[in-house]
Every structure is written in structure tokens, then in C-alpha cells.
């Protein structure tokens, strides 16, 4: 276990160092605007309010992650109960289509429906948490939904497939032979294993979710990391781009690290993966 943790952390460090080096090298190629002092490599991070931006982006990602995990697992389990049944086929089609919906497009539709037409929720903007936490939370609901629904569809497809694959596993056949019903065997033994398989593949999904969050922020005028990054690009504020990009690199690699550690903690077989 410890060897696995050390390897995972080493990969995290390696990924951060390699990608940060590439990012800094590319940004170093930019011509220095006349009249502005070129900041040294690790010097000034500009005036970018990174902390305030993360206070928007991190909760957004977290809410979307929890929503999509709950919804995706639920839909996937439901579809996998009777593979090939009408429910399964309908859900599979729904999940497939849902996974193809761009979150930023869904976001604009949600604004049209819930903000412009029904006027239930704010269309955009963000009130800082210190001012009014409830309003701050309410302005994250629609963006989190826009992010979570397509992500839930993708996760649901993965969960369903892992469960259906698991159904033919010898240990489930054995469990049924011992007298458990198919559903009970699935609940007691299969579910855990199938969800472990999904957990092991979560890293790339998290990367997609984080990148999606930065785009969706743009739809809702949320002053998060994405807005900061795009505004900095628009004004060619290289110091802010550098700061935001480095924070983002650590965030992305950190998410992959957490996913990997989680998979290793839940499933000891992952440790032996490299020996195969």
C-alpha cells in the first residue's frame, strides 16, 4: 500500500513538474509588451485574485461532482438491473445522448428556462460567500446542473457497463448457486466490484469536469478561475495567465491523484496492476 501511495504521489509530482515546465516555457516565448516589466519565472504572479476565483470554482466542481456521481450511479445501476430490457435500452439511449450534450450549451438553455422565463434562479453573477452564503449557493445551482447532467450520463454509461460485465463473473454465479437471488448477489458482491472499476477510471473524467467548469463559468458570468483565465488572455495579462495556469495544473493533477489514491484504497488489486 505504501509503495502504491509513494508511486502515485511521485506521478503527481512528475506530472506537475512536466506540465508546469511546458506551460512556463511556452509563456516565456511571448513577446514582452512595451512598457511592462517582464516578471521573472517564479516572481510576481500579477494581481490575479486567485483565492477569490477558487472560492467560486472549487465549490462549483465539488457540487457538480457529487450530483453527477449520485445521478450517474443511480441511472447506471437502474439500467443494469435487467440488461436488454426496455428500461435498459431506453436508459442507454438517454445516457448516450446526454453524454453528447455540451455542458456550456445546456447551461445557456437552463438560463433561458429557469432565469429568463421562470425567474426562479439568478442568471449569472456571483455574490461572495461572506456577503450572503445562500445567494452564493443559489447562483451555483444552474452551472452545477449544467456540468453535472452530461457528466452523470457519461458516468452512468460506465457504471452500467461495469455492472453488466460483472454479471458473468464466476463469483456471482457462485453466489447465485448458494441460493442468493440475482439482485441480492449483485447488491452484496457485484455492486462493490463494479463501482471499483468505475472509480479506477475516474481520473480522466475529473479532468473533463474541471475543464468544463471553466467554460461553464463563462456562461453564468461567475468570477471563477475560468473567467480569470479568459480575461487575462483577452488583455494579454501574462502574469495572471501564468498564475492561473499553474494553479490549474496543480488542481488537475491533484484531482487525478485523489482519484488514483481512492481507487487504490478501495481496491487492493490496483496495486498489482503494474506487475501484470
Amino acid at each position, binding site marked *: 500500500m505504501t509503495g502504491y501511495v509513494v508511486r502515485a504521489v511521485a*506521478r503527481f509530482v*512528475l*506530472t506537475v513538474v*512536466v*506540465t508546469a515546465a*511546458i*506551460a512556463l516555457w*511556452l*509563456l516565456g*516565448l*511571448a513577446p514582452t509588451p512595451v512598457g511592462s516589466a517582464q516578471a521573472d519565472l517564479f516572481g510576481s504572479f500579477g494581481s490575479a485574485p486567485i483565492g477569490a476565483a477558487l472560492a467560486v470554482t472549487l465549490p462549483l466542481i465539488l457540487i457538480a461532482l457529487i450530483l453527477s456521481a449520485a445521478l450517474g450511479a443511480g441511472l447506471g445501476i437502474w439500467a443494469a438491473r435487467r440488461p436488454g430490457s426496455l428500461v435498459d435500452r431506453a436508459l442507454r439511449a438517454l445516457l*448516450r*445522448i446526454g453524454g*453528447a*450534450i*455540451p455542458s*456550456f*450549451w445546456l447551461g*445557456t*438553455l437552463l*438560463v*433561458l428556462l429557469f432565469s*429568463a422565463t421562470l425567474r426562479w434562479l439568478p442568471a449569472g453573477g456571483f455574490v461572495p460567500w461572506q456577503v450572503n452564503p445562500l445567494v452564493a449557493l443559489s447562483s451555483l445551482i444552474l452551472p452545477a446542473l449544467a456540468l453535472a447532467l452530461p457528466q452523470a450520463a457519461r458516468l452512468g454509461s460506465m457504471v452500467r457497463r461495469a455492472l453488466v460485465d460483472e454479471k458473468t463473473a464466476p463469483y456471482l454465479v457462485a453466489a447465485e448457486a448458494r441460493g442468493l437471488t440475482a439482485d441480492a448477489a449483485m447488491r452484496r458482491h457485484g455492486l462493490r466490484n463494479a463501482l471499483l472499476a468505475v472509480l*479506477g*477510471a475516474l*481520473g*480522466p473524467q475529473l*479532468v*473533463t469536469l*474541471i*475543464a*468544463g467548469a*471553466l*467554460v461553464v463559468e*463563462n*456562461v453564468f458570468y461567475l468570477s471563477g478561475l*475560468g473567467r480569470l*483565465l*479568459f480575461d*487575462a*488572455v*483577452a488583455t*494579454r495579462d*501574462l502574469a495572471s*495567465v501564468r498564475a492561473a*495556469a499553474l494553479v*490549474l*495544473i496543480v488542481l*488537475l*493533477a491533484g484531482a*487525478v491523484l485523489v482519484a488514483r489514491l481512492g481507487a487504490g484504497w478501495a481496491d487492493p488489486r490496483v496495486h498489482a496492476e503494474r506487475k501484470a
Partner: protein
Amino acid sequence: MTDTLALLRTGRFGPSRFRIGAIATLVLLLVGFVSIVWTPYPVTSLDVGSVLQAPGGAHWLGTDQLGRDVLSLIMKGILTSFVVSAVAVFIGAVIGVPLGWMAKIWPGIPDRAIGALGEALLTFPPLLLAVILAAVAGPGVLNIMLAIGLSVAPAFLRTTRDGLVAIERLDYVAAARLAGTGRVETVRRHVLPNLSPLLLAQIFAQLATGVMAEAALGFVGLGVQPPASSLGLLLRDAQSYASVAPVPLLLGGLALIAIVLALTAAALGLRDGLPGYLRRVGDEP
């Protein structure tokens, strides 16, 4: 490659999913190609007299905020999406396939180093690279082709490496080697016919990824720049005017979803037709 085509012709690749996906892709591609020679209205013609018109009349799908014909914009946008994604996937394959092959034939440290590189690329979404390139060189379509290309390279790397590992385990490959068949001949006769359908499935899957990435990057203004048109750019404009004219937003999004679904169906159909020992190759780790 001839074997792949033969398999497609004999219909072993599943009757339904691949064909539906491939035909839908071809139809959409045709719409895109038609836009090169003909669109209902030129997309560069601004008509300030008829901005944000509802569908019907002279403009079947209405006009945007500059008076441009929405149908024409969507046709051009479909072409842009395909072209950007195709170039990106080409870049990804050119980087990924040789690296995967090298990882397979040089086990040990090179294999691990290439694997680590692939993983680093996986944690580097196209968005981040596109932002950095835009900050350095200004936004542009070349940036996003490169950014998307690098982000799809790991998929090709993994597919090639794991595919080669799976193929080498086959009895008839071992038999060919024992019978004294040369290396090049074994690759030509046994390895490539197995690997090419696998890579073809991955190409379709990554084209879908590329189309989605192009739309997201175009939407935040990092991709194709006006007056050129792309689906992402169309949605960006449409968003601002959605409460007045929702039709471009809806149709642009639906066109995007149609492309992604068509390409995904083709990829999944191809995967259905693969032999069992290859079906899982190239899945996410």
C-alpha cells in the same frame, strides 16, 4: 487496411450501429462539403436590415445579430468542426501511434517513460494548452488543432501499445514466428490487420472528442476567429441573443450533438465488431 475494408463490406462489423453512425457522419460531412461551393446566403454578407429574424420566409432558419443566414452559418460550422477535429486527430495519431509502438518494442524504462508522458498529457486538457497558446500567440484555429491533437494523442498511444500486446499473445502470431516468418512479414500479415480496425474505432471516437472540444474552445473565443464560422462561435453569438432569438442556439447545439452521436455510434459499432481479445483495448485506464 484492405482487411478492414473487407470486414466492413462483409458486414461483420455489426449490422446496425456502425452503419447508422457511418451513414449519419457521411450525411453531415456532405452538408459541410456542400457549404464550400454553395450556401443559401454567403456568410460574409451582413444584412443590417434583417437582423435576428425568426425562421421562415427568405431565411429558412432566420438570421443572427448581424443579419447573417443561420442555415448558412450552421453548414459552414459543421465543416469547420469536422476539419478542425480531423486535423487534430491526425496530429494525435501521428504522435500517439509511433510512441505506442515504441513503448511496445522497448519494454522497461522507455515503456514506462512513454506511459508517464501519456499520463501527463491526459491531465493537460486542450483548454489549458489553448489558453496558453492564445496568451502567447493570440487566439487562432492552429492553436486549438494543436491543443486538441496533443490531448487525443494518449488515446492513440494506449490503443497502439495495448493492442500490440494483445495481438502478440495470439497463438497464430506465435505460430507464424515459430514457422520462421520474418518480422516485417508477421507485422504485415497478422499485426496490421488486427490493429487497423482497432485504430479506426479509436479515430471515430477521438473525432467525436475533437468536435466537442472545438465547440467548447470556440465558445470561449479561443478557436476559429470571425469572420470564419464554427459551431462553437455560432453558439457563443447565439447565447448573447438567446432570449430574443433562441433558434440559432437550439439548432447549433443540436447540429453539434448530431455530429458527436454519429461519430460515437460509428466508433461503438466498430468496437462491437472487434474480436473479444481486442474489444477492451484502449479503454480509459
